[in-house]
């Protein structure tokens, strides 16, 4: 099938990109609400950031705990440039601002990467952590550039109009972001197809052997690192355009963790993984974040469980299912999957409800009633507690029993005679 797919894509390599462009153009006419456009803008920024992060982690095997720094620096400079443009010290149309952010990210990565990419693994991770903490701490000290605790802000509408557009509405900004998302994704895809992009994978897999085929592992990492810095800077400038403000929060360790989270949930081993990750993560953050103040706890737990049980991420889960689909045995999975679905759902609902109940009683104890899953009930009564506890326990046990069936069915559905492993 691989050859088949290749031939297909060889016929029209531009097809996925045209499709993506079409989707990006149509989207704001489907989701017209101001809120959804805001979310889509946020998703677009996160996509660029997560994809650039995956250039390091997924393609280059470099685990960074400070990737938000490159986005943040790019964003801060973008706001400063915006202000310079406003005060007519310089002239720059707004759609070109991401390029400035990218160049700043690239420049900063060129400096840091010159020593941090010497080694991979723990040393690289620790340097990235140190740089991250250092820059975050500098935010408070260097107020001229970072603006202290309140950060710095600008006004995007003061830039010279581009073809008459002044980027006053969210929708106009959406198209600017969408354009840069598509362009960045395209460039990052091309990067994976270059000699140095291929060697990044080789160095990730086996740095020593890469040296014996003629490449310095350090230089290969350095090039990837700089490229990732560039696109992080682009994301930063897009952030600056969208929110018109940057603070310490945009480049601290917490933000870097969120980048890691979004990328990892999507799947680091796949080019498209970070896109799915960014979409899902932003939706969780904005939608669930409105429903509960415990969203960070949930995402953290989901993240840990994914690292433990699904290290290939969501895209990896899809990719796994390509095998039974190819073998035409996907039908074997439907029954066990549907069997485990309801007990699993009961368990998840039960445990979330219990967590929320306890949270409500502890921190909003004065209010007797609470609303959960669109139902209002009395937290002092035994009924919700008993019901949710029962759902949790029973759901857990039944899921465990069915999990075995799922595992067996999976084994059968993916079994290939004579396959060497």
């Amino acid at each position, binding site marked *: 099938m*691989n*050859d088949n797919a290749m031939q297909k894509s060889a016929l029209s390599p531009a097809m996925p990109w045209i499709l993506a462009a079409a989707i990006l153009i149509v989207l704001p006419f489907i989701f017209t609400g101001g809120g959804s456009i805001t979310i889509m803008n946020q998703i677009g920024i996160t996509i660029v950031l997560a994809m650039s992060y995956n250039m390091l982690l997924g393609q280059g095997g470099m685990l960074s705990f400070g990737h938000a720094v490159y986005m943040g620096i790019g964003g801060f400079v973008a706001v400063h440039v915006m202000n310079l443009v406003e005060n007519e010290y310089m002239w720059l149309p707004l759609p070109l601002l991401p390029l400035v952010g990218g160049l700043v990210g690239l420049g900063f990565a060129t400096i840091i990467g010159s020593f941090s990419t010497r080694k991979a693994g723990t040393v690289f991770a620790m340097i990235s952590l140190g740089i991250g903490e250092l820059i975050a701490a500098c935010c408070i000290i260097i107020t001229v550039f970072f603006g202290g605790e309140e950060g710095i802000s600008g006004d995007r509408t003061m830039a010279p109009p581009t073809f008459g557009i002044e980027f006053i509405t969210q929708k106009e900004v959406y198209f600017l972001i969408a354009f840069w998302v598509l362009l960045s994704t395209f460039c990052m895809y*091309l*990067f994976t*197809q*270059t*000699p*140095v*992009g*291929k*060697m990044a*994978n*080789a160095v*990730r*897999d*086996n740095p*020593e*052997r*890469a*040296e*014996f*085929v*003629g*490449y*310095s592992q350090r*230089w*290969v990492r350095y*090039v990837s690192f700089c*490229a990732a810095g560039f696109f992080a800077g682009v994301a930063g400038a897009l952030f600056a355009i969208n929110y018109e403000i940057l603070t310490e929060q945009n480049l601290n360790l917490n933000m870097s963790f969120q980048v890691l989270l979004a990328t990892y949930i999507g799947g680091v*081993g796949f080019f498209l993984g970070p896109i799915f990750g960014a979409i899902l993560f932003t939706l969780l953050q904005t939608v669930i974040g409105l429903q509960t103040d415990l969203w960070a706890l949930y995402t953290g737990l989901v993240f840990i469980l994914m690292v433990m049980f699904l290290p290939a991420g969501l895209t990896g889960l899809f990719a796994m299912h390509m095998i039974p689909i190819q073998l035409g045995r996907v039908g074997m999975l439907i029954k066990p999957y549907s069997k485990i679905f309801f007990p699993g759902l009961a368990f998840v609902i039960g445990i979330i409800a219990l967590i929320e109940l306890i949270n409500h009683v502890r921190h909003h104890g004065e209010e007797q009633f609470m609303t959960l899953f669109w139902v209002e009930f009395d937290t002092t009564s035994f009924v919700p507690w008993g019901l949710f506890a029962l759902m949790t326990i029973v759901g857990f046990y039944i899921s465990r029993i069915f999990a075995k069936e799922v595992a067996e069915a999976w084994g059968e559905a993916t079994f290939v005679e004579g396959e*060497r*492993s």
Partner: protein
Amino acid sequence: MSVDALKLDNVKKNFAGTEIIRGLNLSVAQDERHAVIGPNGAGKSTAYNLITGRYQVSSGKVFLKGEDITNLQPYEVKRKGLSRSFQITNIFPKMSVFENVRCSLLWAMGYKYSFWHMVGNQSKLNNDAEEIIEELNLKDRRNTLAGVLSYAEQRALEIGITIAGGSEVILLDEPTAGMSVSETEYIVGLIRKVTEGKTLLVVEHDMGVVFDLADRISVLVYGEIIATGTPTEVKENQAVQEAYLGAAMEEH
């Protein structure tokens, strides 16, 4: 007489004060197939690591086609035209067989750290990679991840990565280790085919393979070459006999 393809001049190596390689002298002529044999722990793999820059030599010189390559980085040694394989399979496990071979071709074909070429469009690069895969007999495994190949296939790929890029001097480290008779035949045939017209230095335990393949043999014992000569000469050499018998006695 032309200059030696590879020459070691009194190379020494200490590990924490212990001399592992005690003055190694070795000359491999152009287009020669040269084998290094010796008992376990004689320093054969260490010698390879010293030649290819994996370890730093303590003293002495290494010359490649007359050029001093002592203590260069591994990638510099490779760029000068010397490739090596590994005793323990050393491939890119999460990349396909094709990608493995193609990556090994990149530097030699002058792409360097290019981020402006698209590898997919480089027809010579791709054709060369396909040819090597064909030579390796791995055509039907072209798109398989290298990590899931069988052992013999991985060994073949190991050799493929080594010869890709057209280095003139090839160092193979126990290419048939841990193989069945039929697999060994396959690999020996492969080595013959792909190192045609190149200089080959091979470390090998299987004496059948050595006598079959080599023009000349050097015997390495305790970090020193005790004899060099044609297979027949080496077989009849008194010192070699003693060294091998002695080592065999100590092992038991």
